[in-house]
Structure formats: C-alpha cells, structure tokens
C-alpha cells in the first residue's frame, strides 16, 4: 500500500476510535443505559411449595396512628410499643389500653419482673402498672439497641452498634457483655452489617443469639460462652440470604424458632437443630424489599407479626390440618 493510502487508513482508524469512545460515552447516560445485566433475580424465590406452608393469615389488627416498632405476646395479651406509647390489648385487638412512655422505643421485653422498653442507647424499666422503675445506664454513642431477652434473672440486650450482647441484672446493673468471639473458628464474633440483631431466651432458659452476617443462630450460656450453633446461608427456602438474616426471631413453647427475614420477606419455623419445619408466611404476602416483621407467638402456635411496611399486626394461625 502506498504512503497516501496508509495515511488515509490511519486517519480512518483514528476517526473510528474517537467515534466509538464518544458513542460509548453518550450511550452510558442515565436515560440510555441498558438494564443492569448483573441484577440478582429473586422472582423465583417467591414461589413456595404450598405443602410447606403451615399457617394462614386470619386477621389484621390496625394500629391506627401509632407507628409500631416492637411487638410481644405475653400473659395472653399483645404488647406493642411505638412513638411514645405502649399499647396492651387482647389478641383480637380488644380492650386496648394505652400508656405513655419515653418517645422512640425500639424493642420490648415483658417478664414477671416488669416491662422493659429498649431505646437506641438505653433501657427503661416499668412495672406492670406502667410506673417508671428505672432508666438504665446509657450504653454510649455507638450503641444501637435492637432487641431484648430475659430469663427471669438476667436481661440480655442486643447492641447492633457495638456488635455485642450486654448482660444486665433485673435491677439494671451491668453484669458483663460478650461479642460472640472464641478461639474456635465458629466463634468469629457477631457480624452485624445493619441494625438487625435479635436474641431470645426459650422456655428451657437457653439463650440464642442471631449472628446475622453469618446467617447463624448461636447458643450461649447465660454468661456468654458459646455452646453451639447452626447456620444456613442459602438461596433455597430452608436457608437465609441477604446481608443480615434472620433479622428477627422468637421461640415457640417446644423450643422451635420462628424466623423473620428482611428483603425477601418471609416467616419460617425451624427446629432447634436448624431443620426447616414449615413456612408461616411466604414472600408474596409482603412488600417487595420490605422490612422484617417483628414476630411473637402464643401457646397455640399462632404467630403475630408486626408488619412495619403496612403498620398492622398480622395474625397467622396454624392450618386446621396441622
């Protein structure tokens, strides 16, 4: 090829390169960008085998103007906190009684010894007449208290901000804390990417703490030594997915766990070893990318779920043939 021809080829290629760059730049503008090819497809995960579903939704209890933030079933009644109010009502929503509490409650624990309301950085203890007993010590700037649990002697406070569980006496004295760490590989410590960090004490007095980043349930002695755990990170129905699930838990009388997940919202029941027993509520009943409902259950296995996205208490009763 002669020099002139090569010069033209050079110019044409340079022009093509500039055109490609400019066209690519223009095609990556917000209104021209192609759909995200890496989007995680979760549509198929919403399908749950009907055989697995053990409960059916029977009733909703509206909370009216109250913005609920935590729910507990105890003493045959439902206890709900939100805004600056605690509401105690029957399981059918009857005879609601309202009590004024400090504003901004986030969690709740009802025991014989009293009613404990968790705030972002501290716990407030009331008696059953809803008289203020004591405001416990502030846990500091980094604290984000997400849930409370108790065994009648001690109160366990899940602190997502500091990624630890603080142990209190019933009088509000700090007895210690633990971060879930141990020398074994299992005791990595609590991985809490968001303010979803729950714990529960079952009827046998066992303390179970969710390690949400590991998708694990960890059993601790009452002074914070790990005794066992199970974990299941999976896209299948029997596992947990996302950054921090299960976001909320409660226990049934037989020690089974009721788990509530965020993102792909679903409520499930597991036995103590982590075997999936059934599904209480499938994702199609909840808002897409929703918050994990706070859950509690009664002696008959009725599950009460505080749906934050709809601001109602949703009641799921076991199916008749269960």
């Amino acid at each position: 090829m002669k020099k002139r021809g090569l010069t033209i080829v050079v110019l044409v290629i340079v022009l093509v390169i500039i055109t490609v760059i400019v066209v690519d730049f223009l095609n990556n503008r917000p209104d021209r960008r192609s759909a995200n090819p890496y989007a995680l497809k979760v549509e198929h995960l919403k399908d749950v085998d009907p055989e697995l579903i053990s409960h059916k939704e029977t009733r909703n209890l509206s909370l009216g103007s109250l913005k609920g933030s935590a729910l507990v079933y105890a003493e045959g009644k439902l206890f709900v906190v939100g805004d600056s109010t605690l509401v105690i009502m029957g399981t059918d929503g009857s005879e609601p009684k309202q009590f004024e509490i400090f504003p901004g409650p986030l969690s709740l624990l009802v025991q014989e010894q009293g009613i404990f309301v968790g705030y972002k950085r501290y716990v407030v203890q009331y008696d059953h007449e809803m008289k203020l007993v004591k405001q416990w010590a502030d846990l500091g700037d980094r604290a984000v208290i997400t849930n409370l649990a108790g065994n009648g002697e001690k109160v366990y406070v899940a602190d997502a901000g500091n990624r630890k569980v603080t142990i209190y006496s019933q009088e509000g004295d700090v007895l210690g804390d633990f971060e879930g760490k141990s020398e074994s590989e299992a005791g990595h410590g609590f991985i809490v990417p968001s303010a979803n960090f729950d714990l529960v004490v079952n009827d046998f007095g066992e303390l179970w703490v969710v390690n949400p980043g590991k998708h694990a349930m960890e059993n601790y002695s009452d002074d914070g030594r790990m005794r066992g755990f199970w974990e299941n990170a999976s896209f299948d129905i029997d596992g947990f997915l996302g950054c921090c699930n299960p976001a909320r838990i409660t226990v049934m009388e037989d020690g089974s766990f009721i788990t509530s997940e965020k993102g792909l919202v679903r409520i499930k029941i597991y036995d103590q070893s982590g075997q999936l027993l059934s599904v209480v509520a499938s994702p199609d009943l909840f808002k897409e990318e929703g918050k994990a409902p706070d859950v509690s259950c009664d002696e008959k296995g009725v599950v009460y779920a505080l749906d934050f996205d709809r601001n109602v208490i949703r009641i799921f009763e076991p199916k008749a043939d269960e």
Partner: protein
Amino acid sequence: MKRRVNMHRKLNMQKRIPGFFILLFVIMVSATTLIQGQQRFPKPEFDSGYVQPDPTSPEPRSVALEYFDVFVLLAALSLASWLAVRKRSRKGLMWLSIFTLIYFGFYRDGCICSVGAIQNVALSIFDPAYTISLAALLFFLLPLIFALFFGRVFCASVCPLGAIQDLLVINPVSIPSWIRKTLGFIPVIYLGLAVLLAATGSDFIICRYDPFVGIFRMDGPFLMIFLGVTFLLLGTFYARPYCRVFCPYGVLLSWMSKFSKYHMSITPSECIKCKLCKDSCPFDAIEVPVDKAYRKPEVARKNLRRFVLYLALIPMLTLLGGWIGSKSHVFLSRMHPDVYLAELMISQPELREDETNLDIQAFLESGDTFEQLVEQAIVIRTKFKKGGLALGAFIGLVLGITLMNQVVFRRREDYEPHKANCFSCGRCMDFCPVDRGT
C-alpha cells in the same frame, strides 16, 4: 590505609544491597499475603448460580506495597535514564520495557498509572474533600521530573501503555507532517477535557477509556478490548498511536522534555549526516538540519512577519477559546451525571416511575430530595462555567503557541531528536554508525 578500609566497606555494601532488597521484597510480599488473607468476615457459601460482575478496578493494596510500586517506578525511571543517556542501549531499554509491561501492566493490572494520576491530581486541587495519596502524587510527578532532566524516559520503557505498543511496531510508516501535527493536537484537547471532568467530579475519562487495561486484566467490556486490539493493530504500521494521538500525559511530558538538559543524543560524537537515524525512527521525531535557505534575509524577514502575526494571535485565540468554552458550559456540564439526571427528571418526570432506570432509582433510594439534586446541579454548572472558560482558553493558547512554533527555526547543523516528541526509545542510537570514540 583508610582509603582501602572505605573501599572495603563500599564493596561490602554493594554485596549487601541486593540481599537487602531481596529481603525487603520478601517481607512485602509476605505482608500482602497476610493482609489479603484476613477478610472482614467470612463470606457465606451460596450456591445460586449467580455470576458476579468483575470489579472495574483492582483490589486495594496495602500502603507498604503502594510505596513499593513507587520504588519500582523510581528504579525503572533511573535505569531508563541511565540506559538512554549514558549506556545508550536500545536492547537494555527494550528489556526494561518488557519488565515494566509485566509489572505495571499485567501484574498491577494497569493501575496505578501516571497517565491516570492526572485526574487524581486535578480532583485533589479543586475538591477540598478529596485527598490524593502520596503514591498517586509521586506517580504523577516522578516521570515529569525525570523528563525535565533526561527527556521522555518514562515513555521509553517505563509506561506499560507505551511498552505494549512499542513491542508491536512492525512496519512503521511516516505520514505527512501537517496531519501528524493536526492529530497531535487531540491529546491537548483530551488533557483539557480530562482535567475539567476530573476537577468537577464528573468522570475519570482517561481511566474509563484506557484501551489497554482490558488486555492487562485479561478481562473487560467488549468495547474496551476492541479499542485495545484496534490500537495495537494500528500500531503495527503507525507506531504508538495512543501515545501520539491520545495520551494526555504525553502533553505534559513533552513540555517538560523540551527543557531537558541531559536528553539522549543520536550520535555519541560527531554526526556524519547519514540519515540512518531518521529512517530508523518510527515516530518521525528526528529533526533534520535546518536548510540554509531559512537564513537568507528575505526568508528571515518573511518568517519574522509571520512570527509577529502569530504572536499577536495568541491572546486573541486564548480569549476566543475562553469565550467559546464559557458559552459551552451548559453543554459541557451535561457530562456530569447529576446535571444530566436533574435535567432528565425535569424534562421527563414520568421516568421517576421507571423501575428499570438504575440511575433514577438509585437517586430516589438515596433519600435526597429532587430540590437538593437541582441545587447540586446548579452548583456544578457554575463550576463548569469557570472550567469551560479555562478549557477554551487553554486550547486557544496551545493552538496559538503551536502556530507560532511553525515559523520558529533554530539553527541546527546535525540530525537531532525532537526533544518534545522523542520517546527516547533508542532505535536511532542503535542505527547510528558513529562509534563513541570517533
């Protein structure tokens, strides 16, 4: 006796130095392994079949290893300077460029890089919230400092972008000077635009359109691989096309190199004007001896008149460029994603409901209000008004100086490397038949 002891110590030191560096290297590599081995938390085992997107930038390195990269850069620049200026070894320069291609290209995935560091420096100057790392700053400054003393030794054998092209120069052709000079103006515009976009926080276009990163990482979007391969194919007959037609850092290096005191020379002693060097240079960077006709009084007078005219044009071109740039600020500001998004949401409000539009959905999820976005867009547009003015003035100024340089003839008796355009690759030295002792 004392002198002998000193020499003995010196010899011992020389023996120890390689050992010390090997030890240092081993420590650094071990440190990296440890740092990389400790994850923030164990990744859960998912088996979903989901294919994760490849990261667009390499994983961050420990600070110690970033400084090790700076050390390698400094060592490579020093060695390249020695090979080009003192040793005059084309072969040495080529082997060094193979090493840097492997290290900075394939091992370091083309990042960190002096070319892209322009943007970090620009952003750090104009955005007080952004702090440039010392390593990035040194990557920007060191090649320029070396160019000021020894010419473009960075281009010769330290830059991986240059190295990969240089190794594929097969049958270079020379194209007409006026086309070369016209194409050579593209890097000036690219530099100005890249600085403007980086300074306004809009985009890092040099990195985004680095054509060889996809090849270095053996992965990348089809478009970037296509661009890289196209550049390499073009480079087989139009040597180093990226360096000559696009590289914005080359503009800065050429300015520095113009003033280089110890630039490599073609011949080690007296030039015999055999023209072999001119034929050997694939970059048309050899200046020929100036024709005596230019020294004639009538030609000199004519050139003087043109020189004065072009000199007078410089401020006019600068002002005109500044005016055009300032007037273009609305258009230019749309390159910033926030401005584009704000305009889009004003002109097409229905797009807010479009769940497939990732940018709008990401904005809505951010929690910011639309009013905040518009306010932000107005602030950015104001920055573009000043930036557009500066960009236009810069382009006008460079254009004026380039025109003026067309009529400036310096006396030159021998064939010499064009200090600004010469990549110090050493091919001409290799072809020069004159011996050192001649």
